[in-house]
């Protein structure tokens, strides 16, 4: 089982596909859960402590907007923890909870920079079945090519 970081980091489809093919998705949801359920400062909507901006500084310089650094405090350790990655480009909904285009660019850049297997695909458009098939087939084959257990991965 390999830890696979997904981008968009809160994607239902990617999280499901990674788990379906026997790996562990590294997704935003579980990090948010850790964040809100750890006993610390109670500052809704998230427990932000003084440590978080410092963690963000590891990934983005001090001149970078605070929002990017704050987001990278969560996303950065996810990328460090990953052993493989799936990036889906052309996501029309990479805003809202996903927040900020600069964070998204930095996230994709840092995933690509890691020395690990990375798959890049495009979201299928509308109800185009052939594009959806290509999307699923590529992700399935990529996930099947990853080692199933730790020992296999080290070999």
């Amino acid at each position, binding site marked *: 089982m390999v830890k696979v970081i997904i981008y*968009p980091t*809160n*994607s*239902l*489809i990617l*999280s*499901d596909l990674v*788990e379906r093919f026997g790996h562990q998705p590294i*997704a*935003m*949801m*579980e*990090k*948010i*859960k*850790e*964040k*809100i*359920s*750890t*006993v*610390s400062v*109670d500052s*809704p*909507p998230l*427990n932000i402590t003084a440590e978080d901006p410092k963690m963000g500084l590891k990934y983005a310089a001090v001149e970078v907007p605070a929002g990017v650094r704050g987001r990278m405090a969560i996303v950065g350790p996810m990328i460090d923890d990953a052993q493989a990655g799936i990036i889906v480009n052309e996501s*029309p*909904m990479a805003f*809202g*909870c*996903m927040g900020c285009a600069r964070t998204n660019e930095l996230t994709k850049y840092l995933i690509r920079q890691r020395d690990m297997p990375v798959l890049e695909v*495009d*979201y*299928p*458009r509308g*109800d*185009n*079945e*052939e*594009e*959806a*098939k*290509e*999307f*699923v*087939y590529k992700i*399935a084959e990529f996930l099947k090519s990853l080692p199933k257990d730790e020992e296999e991965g080290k070999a």
Partner: protein
Amino acid sequence: MAEGDNDTLTKIVVISSDSVLPVDAAMKIYQSHTDIVIKETCFGTMVTGPRDAVNRVVKEVVDLDRNHIFVKERGFLPGDERRCRSSRGGGPRPGFHYLRHEVQMLPTIGKALDAYDRKAPLKEVKQKKKLDVDKLEDLIESHL
């Protein structure tokens, strides 16, 4: 507001099936006799409880129609006042738009998973390319 219980898990079960209705999934969960809380929503259900119980129940639900029921973890508990619309004055909750966007794609993703299981061959897909700037210029000038 910190819950402090790290072994509590919340999962969103999204149903995009022709044969299984959200109410069927909810009944399956009710029948499981485990100590979990469920909330029916417009796209499926949310299941909260001890990690093992939630994983077991969700697996049973997914097995109803494996390629057309999708699951992801959720950070907040159902009804958490930091996310719940009732305490935020209405409007979509954060994250809803993205979920809705992906839910619209699920029928084709489900069909693609069926095809993958059948080992159906993949046809060559012609990718639509963005319009070339030179071609656009030619088009504009041709109408002047």
